[in-house]
């Protein structure tokens, strides 16, 4: 019977078969012995000693750590680069809003019987699109639109799940990845998407900068500012979407905000800001991965914490300099 993987082993009688009456005769004196040798709470705590002292070479010799390193450095470099725009345009929560749109998409997918992944990606794109529209720029700024998008997507998610007969909410995190469980395929996909966005940003660096910094003059100079702004939001949104999928929300958010602020504290030329941000985005990745390994912490949180340490260092340097 090839269908049945386990069937070839002659298994013991089915447990159900031990009808209560027949088995009740058996005495149960083992309770004492059983409990003594299984102190449940403790042995899943500590990391084996050899892991606590693993060398860098050993840690990054592991192939999942290598994948984590590659995906992480890609997200760190490019996320932090884009983060300069995100911070300067005051839309630091754009990643949170997009993640929430993705959740709403999962809920919608469940209700409509679509694949949740499809719903998730679809709604995230809808979110990117909605956020890149210019609503009523005199009265409602983009940061407010992001707040509105976040809270509405959250409410819609809950309402949709309420009418889904078996809403298992753990699916909501469908698109949110974890740096150490990223697959080869996802790593390549993410690097590819980030590379495309990055190349786009390098090619159109001057246009995107001009339009962000001084939209009125740019328009007078002949640029279609609306188009360029949409391209900017769209490209950042796509990069964020892929990053969340590969390394999770926390790390994406942290990478987007912290290195950019650090760089802004120290630099006096926007080109240097971009470069420094990318460097500061990449530095904590290997370090954080290594420390999270030997100290047994969540890698995303560890990297964010290291990034924050760098921020403090940059803050002190900038104080000293002025």
């Amino acid at each position, binding site marked *: 019977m090839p269908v049945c993987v386990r069937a070839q082993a002659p298994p013991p009688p089915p447990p159900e078969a031990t009808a209560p009456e027949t088995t009740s005769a058996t005495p149960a004196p083992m309770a004492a012995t059983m409990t003594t040798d299984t102190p449940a709470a403790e042995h899943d705590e500590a990391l084996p000693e050899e892991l606590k002292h693993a060398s860098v070479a050993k840690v990054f010799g592991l192939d999942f750590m290598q994948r984590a390193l590659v995906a992480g450095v890609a997200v760190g470099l490019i996320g932090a680069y884009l983060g300069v725009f995100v911070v300067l345009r005051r839309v630091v929560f754009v990643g949170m809003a997009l993640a929430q749109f993705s959740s709403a998409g999962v809920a919608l997918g469940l209700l409509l019987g679509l694949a949740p992944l499809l719903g998730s990606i679809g709604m995230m794109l809808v979110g990117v699109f909605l956020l890149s529209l210019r609503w009523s720029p005199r009265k409602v700024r983009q940061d407010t639109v992001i707040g509105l998008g976040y809270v509405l997507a959250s409410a819609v998610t809950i309402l949709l799940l309420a009418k889904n007969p078996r809403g298992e909410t753990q699916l909501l995190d469908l698109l949110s990845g974890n740096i150490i*469980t990223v697959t080869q395929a996802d790593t390549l996909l993410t690097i590819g998407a980030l590379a495309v966005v990055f190349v786009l940003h390098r090619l159109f660096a001057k246009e995107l900068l001009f339009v962000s910094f001084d939209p009125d003059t740019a328009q007078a100079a002949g640029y279609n500012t609306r188009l360029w702004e949409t391209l900017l939001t769209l490209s950042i949104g796509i990069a964020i979407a892929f990053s969340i999928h590969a390394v999770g929300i926390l790390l994406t958010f942290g990478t987007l905000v912290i290195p950019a602020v650090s760089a802004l504290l120290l630099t006096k030329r926007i080109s240097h800001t971009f470069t420094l941000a990318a460097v500061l985005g990449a530095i904590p990745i290997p370090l954080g991965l290594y420390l999270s390994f030997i100290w047994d912490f969540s890698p*995303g949180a560890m990297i964010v914490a290291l990034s924050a340490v760098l921020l403090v260092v940059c803050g002190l340097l900038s104080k000293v300099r002025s």
Partner: protein
Amino acid sequence: MEIITTTPELAAITRELVGTLASVTSLAKPETNYHQVDAKPSDVVKVARADLFVRCGMDLDMWADALLGSSRNAKVQRGAPGYVDASARVRKLEVPTGGINGASGDVHAAGNPHFWFDPKDAVVVAYEILLALLAVDKAHGNTYNANYKRFTDEITARLAGWEKTLAPFKGQGFVAYHDEWVYFATRFGLNQFGFLEPKPGIPPSGGHVTDLIQRMKASKVRAVVMGSIYSTKYADLIAREAGGKVAVVPYSVGGLGTRTYFEYLDAIVNGFAKALR
């Protein structure tokens, strides 16, 4: 030998079988939500070194898929002898009937995954694990078989006690935090009367709460049972409005001072008895 399980319950059952022959580690820590686990590097390493990987299945621990993938441990990949889906032989409850349509959502086709609350299903799980142990570690087959027998015997013995404890309440209803007691209730002839928060994370409506309170009053149901990780705010509300009696039971082995599967079930059974009394 290294054995990794996804939940503390599976770890507890596995320990009964392996005794001191293997180290057993649960990826989800006790008293944490085992539906969502944020993996750490050490988790990947653990899975990578595992000789046996025991999971709940039925979509409860989907987060383990990424870990399995990252570990690249051929011994424990799906289909390998070291991979145990504990739910494989369990008689599944709440499997959506009427086919899989859009409204039910295909991902929930597997049914309710909280089967370990039924001691007899624990035996099925133990059996599933036993098979795998016998496959990956033939040398200690006799010990495993003996431990398995001891486990089933003790379950049988304790079950009698548990059934006796709960016998007076047969047919009585209780209110749960959310839908995780169906196996337990079926086993002990209790009536899962309603839920405080039917879907985790989705706050119930006033109508739902009123309906529940009215039905509780009408049916003279007062017992409210909830796992130890949940917020007590709905239980408090029900207690205020319907005179409910709230019992908090361990959410997982390791919770509320429990150490073994037996202590865990003891605490649960006692909790139910207290609430139903």
